[in-house]
């Protein structure tokens, strides 16, 4: 393409862009159409008007929306857990392969990311707290042992 041709294309693209701006603004005002540059290609204008009318935004089902909201709330709660009691424990990875990989920037262009690493987007272990749980279990066992020891001792009688 020549420089002149390229310039012409960019000028046309700019005209189209301006028309789309005004068209989408007109939709916000619930107006059917918007004023266009007279030099704008009429076929482009018609196609834009048509797509503005026919490419509607879709909403998923209410059931899906609430299910995902609940799942996100669950994940959010697990992310807050380290700040709660027992947070001194270490986290280790266990099941299930459900959350995205925290080591991969999810917004990176996939072409820049190793496919094997990207596959991790579907498989990240869920971290769980273990140190706090072990401490808690150890205390419980010690408590049970102390109660057993107390019960095995004969009751002391007072010598008065």
């Amino acid at each position, binding site marked *: 393409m020549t420089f002149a041709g390229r310039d012409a*294309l*960019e000028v*046309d*693209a*700019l005209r*189209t*862009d301006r028309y*789309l701006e005004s068209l*989408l603004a007109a939709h916000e005002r619930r107006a059917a159409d918007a004023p266009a540059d007279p030099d704008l*290609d009429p*076929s*482009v204008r*018609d*196609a*834009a008007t*048509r*797509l*503005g009318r*026919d*490419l*509607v*935004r*879709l*909403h*998923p*089902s209410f059931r*899906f*929306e609430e299910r*995902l*909201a609940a*799942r*996100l*709330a669950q*994940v*959010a*709660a697990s*992310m*807050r857990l380290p700040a709660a009691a027992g947070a001194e424990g270490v986290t280790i990875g266990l099941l299930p392969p*459900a*959350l*995205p990989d*925290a080591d991969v*920037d*999810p*917004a*990176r*262009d*996939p072409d820049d990311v190793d496919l094997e690493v*990207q596959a991790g*987007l*579907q498989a990240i272990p869920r971290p769980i707290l273990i140190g706090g749980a072990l401490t808690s279990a150890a205390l419980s066992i010690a408590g049970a042992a102390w109660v057993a020891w107390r019960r095995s001792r004969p009751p002391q009688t007072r010598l008065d």
Partner: protein
Amino acid sequence: MARPVLRRVGAAEEPRPRVAHLDRDRRLVEAAQRDPARFEALYRRYLAQVYSYAYYELGNHHDAEDATERTFLSALTNLHRFEERAQPADGEGASTFRVWLFRIARNAVANQRRAERRHPTAPLEAAPLIADPLDVEGRVQARDEAAAAWRAVGRLPGDRRRALVLRFVDEMSTAEIAGVLGRSEGAVRVLIHRALRAVARQLREEGS
């Protein structure tokens, strides 16, 4: 609503501070970064947009729901990585969070495609559902026209199709689309212009 703020940009070249617009999602993002439970507000705000993008790309509700779910889970667990980069050129009401979210969505859709090994060449199944709320005769033509328009868009090459969906369905600015697709604004303008010409040609050939 974006909040204008005074910010010094390029102090050497521009001695006076310029008015820049903060990311309109800034308050919500900061709240969610402090407390992940607050992410729900962002989820509700962008659910339909992300879902629509996934649906137009993948062509069926089931895959669109999967991609949407992955997108939001990924955004939530990686929110600490997000850095606001709003620029004056992004325009009033722009959201760099939305750009970031849609980059995740684009990757989620690409992964879904790789897994499914298929492309959305068939007419989108929802066309009758959209144009058919109280089916009366007058709506049949509108439904057919919508299906033809969707077919024309579905036949476009990848980035042209994505640019049109982001522009018309998600009502993104050129700058935002450039951020999502990783192209310059000029390239996006040309992409959309060419896509519209192709759609016009396609519709003319179909006689609709």
